[in-house]
């Protein structure tokens, strides 16, 4: 049994059967991090003392027959914009490198209550936006499949750490694709829940209207288990939605027979995509058809439209978040983030309002599609992971994004692995989105696909 790559569901079963204990698992993973993370830099800070204390507490409770739920005794990591009381939360930035929060983020409170074990704070692009950067106080995380490549971002550390077998789960954040992108490029699962499904309170903002918090794991089943713990209304988050939380794990076994899926034309198959992506998506579509779903093409607005809309809104909001620091200490930002914030200073109120009004129209376009289709299918990344080269052009402005359409609409969307590129051996990924609060549909499809395939069971070799 390789502890490093057990899923949450498998670890829970091993705890139930007394084959493993939380302390044993935590020690094994801390050892693996110590041996290998020097090559990947996925952690900003390993919280070894906290992890061992929480593991001992979980172990005592489990031994006494007091099981809190599916995350009890499960190690996890947090992207370092999620506030942790008494533990530095840096945003991977010089501006906050000594910031120690007084309170936990709401999501941390829920994870603690669920009996999770905090292994550490994970690398991020600067403030979940500016990256990949090579001029910050901590190095950029690397991709476990090829250390000369990047894991994507902005949840770079969570993507790398889960793929490397350092933790079975991590919490990321997603404004324009920051969970789904790294999940895709690292060959793991990542869910951006519906906007308002998971509390943002205590998570350093990237924007005010598009930030989502969500799980990154190695299987769709594990996504369901974490979502069960972290989802739910938070009256102190103005964006939180008061909407019942279904039993996500119960939905997994429903199969996909009879589901109607729309394969979005002109997104994953537009010029510029990796040549192996089209065949990988076609194979995934065939597999879902074989499992009983029906699939038809659907046309939506272009990726360029969605990217223009999302980026205009997000940089205007990003500027308001960082304006004071930008005026007073611009040199303390990394180059990439500074050059992404500054445009917000030049966006007029009319531009911002026009983009917000367009957002409504684009979101409605998807609502109409969801009257015909139970889910929309596309890729989660149009390319494999980029080489770790500091002077590469900023992708935010050079290429339209395939994750931003579902950021604009705020619907749930998952990335799951669906193959590997032939020449480079790097992960390729499928993206599945459904209507607002239909995470059950997304997870049901992803789980059925993973039951029929083994892409998510392949792991990178880290060597000695």
């Amino acid at each position, binding site marked *: 049994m390789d502890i490093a790559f057990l899923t949450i569901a498998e670890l829970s079963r091993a705890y139930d059967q007394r084959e493993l204990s939380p302390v044993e698992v935590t020690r094994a993973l801390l050892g693996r991090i110590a041996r290998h993370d020097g090559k990947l830099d996925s952690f900003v800070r390993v919280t070894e003392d906290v992890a061992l204390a929480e593991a001992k507490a979980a172990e005592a409770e489990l031994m006494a027959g007091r099981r809190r739920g599916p995350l009890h005794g499960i190690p996890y990591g947090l992207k370092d914009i999620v506030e942790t009381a008494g533990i530095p939360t840096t945003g991977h930035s010089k501006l906050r490198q000594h910031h120690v929060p007084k309170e936990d983020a709401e999501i941390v409170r829920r994870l603690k209550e669920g009996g999770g074990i905090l292994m550490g704070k994970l690398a991020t692009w600067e403030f979940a936006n500016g990256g990949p950067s090579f001029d910050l106080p901590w190095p950029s995380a690397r991709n476990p499949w090829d250390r000369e490549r990047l894991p994507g971002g902005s949840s770079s550390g969570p993507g790398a750490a889960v793929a490397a077998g350092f933790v079975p789960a991590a919490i990321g954040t997603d404004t324009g694709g920051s969970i789904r992108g790294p999940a895709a490029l690292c060959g793991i699962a990542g869910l951006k829940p519906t906007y308002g499904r998971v509390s943002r309170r205590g998570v350093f903002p990237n924007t005010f209207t598009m930030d989502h918090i969500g799980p990154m794991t190695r299987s769709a089943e594990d996504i369901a288990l974490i979502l069960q713990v972290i989802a739910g209304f938070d009256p102190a988050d103005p964006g939180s939605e008061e909407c019942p939380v279904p039993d996500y794990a119960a939905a997994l076994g429903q199969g996909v027979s009879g589901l109607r899926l729309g394969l979005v034309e002109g997104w994953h198959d537009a010029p510029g995509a990796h040549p192996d992506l089209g065949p990988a998506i076609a194979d995934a579509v065939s597999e879902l058809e074989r499992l009983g779903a029906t699939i038809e093409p659907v046309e939506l607005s272009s990726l360029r439209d969605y990217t223009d809309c999302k980026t205009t809104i997000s940089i205007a909001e990003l500027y308001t978040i960082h304006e004071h620091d930008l005026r007073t200490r611009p040199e303390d930002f990394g180059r990439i983030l500074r050059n992404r914030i500054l445009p917000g200073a*030049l966006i007029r109120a009319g531009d911002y309002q026009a983009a917000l009004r367009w957002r409504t129209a684009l979101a409605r376009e998807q609502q109409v599609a969801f009257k015909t289709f139970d889910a929309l299918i596309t890729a989660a990344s149009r390319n494999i992971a980029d080489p770790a080269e500091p002077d590469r052009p900023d992708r935010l402005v050079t290429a339209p994004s395939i994750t931003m359409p579902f950021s604009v609409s705020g619907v749930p969307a998952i990335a799951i692995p669906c193959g590997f590129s032939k020449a480079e051996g790097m992960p390729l990924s499928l993206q599945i989105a459904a209507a607002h609060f239909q995470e059950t549909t997304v997870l049901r499809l992803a789980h059925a696909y993973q039951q029929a395939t083994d892409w998510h069971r392949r792991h990178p070799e880290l060597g000695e």
Partner: protein
Amino acid sequence: MRDDLSHLPPASPDDIRAMLARAGIGLSEEHMQQFIATWPQFEAMVRRIPRGLGYADEPAHIFRPSRLAGD
């Protein structure tokens, strides 16, 4: 034809300097040159946003008094 602002000429480096100054942003010359190289791509994005929406097409941003009433 879409009603947007993409027909406008791009801002010149002097325009960009003036706009930043009006926004109260002071940059070193090195940082200014980096931004002058960056802004045209963002400017193109912003100008492609359609402007011809009707009055009833309201922003996605919603003000909900009931949330404040709960404070």
